């Protein structure tokens, strides 16, 4: 339960933001724009195996939004509290383990990621785009939030300024949005690029989140995602443990 005060603090803040006018709207903006531009515009000319393009796109947008929001909330929140507000000092000086600090932030990031996804899921259900909430879908979503919240902790711990967090986002997060199978199946890409893209975590989220049943490829995807999550968790926790001003 050591993670609880950290989680609680983030949630108090999140709740406050929620009530601020326009917050929900802004967080909906990006995925809705993609939905309109790609789903209705471009989408008509894209052929996807089995079913409509919208049915293909929606899970991809859920993966993308949950990634963005889980990552951003944690990376920028942690960076600000470390570099600017200095509130991170209070956590370091409290008798709690680095993994508890980690867990508090990760859980908060997951809530943020899930919240953003929920909006798109509601749109998807409303649009009747052949889109179903299966247990595997929910599991993938949770795992994806977990993964990128962990990445957020690591980046939040190593960035020196707040701008750096968006630099990392532009280098690692944004390319994944476009190449990891959010908007079109990755098998449309040249083989070399496919091999590269298969190393990216979001690719596996996109593979898994569109499956109706778990198969070999799905299990591989889970293992890759868990591997990344573990990697970020271990590095992030070590950064917190070795923290020194």
């Amino acid at each position, binding site marked *: 339960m050591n993670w609880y005060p950290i989680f609680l*603090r983030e949630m108090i803040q999140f709740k406050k933001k929620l009530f601020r006018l326009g917050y929900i709207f802004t967080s909906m903006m990006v995925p809705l724009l993609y939905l309109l531009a790609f789903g209705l515009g471009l989408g008509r000319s894209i052929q996807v195996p089995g079913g409509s393009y919208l049915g293909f796109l929606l899970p991809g947008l859920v993966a993308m939004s949950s990634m963005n929001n889980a990552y951003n909330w944690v990376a920028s929140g942690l960076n600000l509290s470390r570099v600017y507000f200095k509130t991170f000092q*209070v956590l370091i000086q409290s*008798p709690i383990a680095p993994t508890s600090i980690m867990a508090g932030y990760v859980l908060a990031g997951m809530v943020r990621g899930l919240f953003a996804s929920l909006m798109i899921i509601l749109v998807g259900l409303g649009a009747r785009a052949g889109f179903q909430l299966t247990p595997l879908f929910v599991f993938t979503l949770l795992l994806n939030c977990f993964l990128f919240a962990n990445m957020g902790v690591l980046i939040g711990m190593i960035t020196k300024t707040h701008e750096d967090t968006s630099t990392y986002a532009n280098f690692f997060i944004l390319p994944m949005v476009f190449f990891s199978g959010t908007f079109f199946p990755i098998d449309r890409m040249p083989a070399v690029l496919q091999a590269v893209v298969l190393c990216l975590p979001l690719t596996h989220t996109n593979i898994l989140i569109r499956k109706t049943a778990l198969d070999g490829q799905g299990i591989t995807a889970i293992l890759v995602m868990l591997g990344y999550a573990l990697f970020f968790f271990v590095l992030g926790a070590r950064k917190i443990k070795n923290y020194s001003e």
Partner: protein
Amino acid sequence: MIKLEHLTKDYGKIRAVDDLSFQIGRNEIFGLLGPNGAGKSTTIKILTTLVKPSGGRAALDGFDVVREPLEVKKRIGVVPQENNLDRELSAFDNLRIYGLLHHLPDLEQKIEEQLRSVDLWERRKDNIQTFSGGMQRRLLIARAALGGPRVLFLDEPTIGLDPQVRREIWNMIRRLRAQGGTVLLTTHYIEEAEALSDRVGILSRGKLIALDTPANLKKMVGEYVVEYLDGEGNQLTRMCAGREDAECFLREAGIEVRRRRSNLEDVFVKLTGERIEK
């Protein structure tokens, strides 16, 4: 209670703390003085697990600050020089999160007690952002004292506080000591160090250049001070061992002078060659 052995901290080429060794006893109020950049805050940060030392060792209640940080953290309360309150939260929530992080029992009651003691209970629901500088400072002190820590670190605790509140903070510090606590404080207010400290250490460029009771330190540099103006109107001072010396100097100089008892500031100026009060 606190033990430093050859403690050193380098920031690149800057040696912020240079081979510090001293001890602070249980139930002592220890004042750390020194000019800007002397290494006071860095020393406190090392002792409170925020900065890892480059060399030497430090222990609190027998627990090494690097190897057993969790045990150290259980025993300390910290008032940092720089405000690190959660500006997005209310005063109450700031203390609540802190109390939860420290597993404090009877938290609500403790929070009320502390907020009342710094006269912020009525403002408990307000956002920190709406607090004046002095109110934020008081809240920082209330937060540090919340769990009744065995060792309280205060880095310039009363900076920006009005005289009345400052006196109240002094009483809080004394109360904590009366309850068996140990206090390490830094300050630029000499009268604060004199009023509170059992012993005073003077830091200059990361090194400890004097350590004693305020009375002994004053004796060391001379108990009397002659202040006089030179031809251009600059104030000069002369330290004298006793009253006779001071009077002798007065007669010889044959100028308009003022004689007073020495204070810790004189100790400081003499030892560091720098003025302390900002």
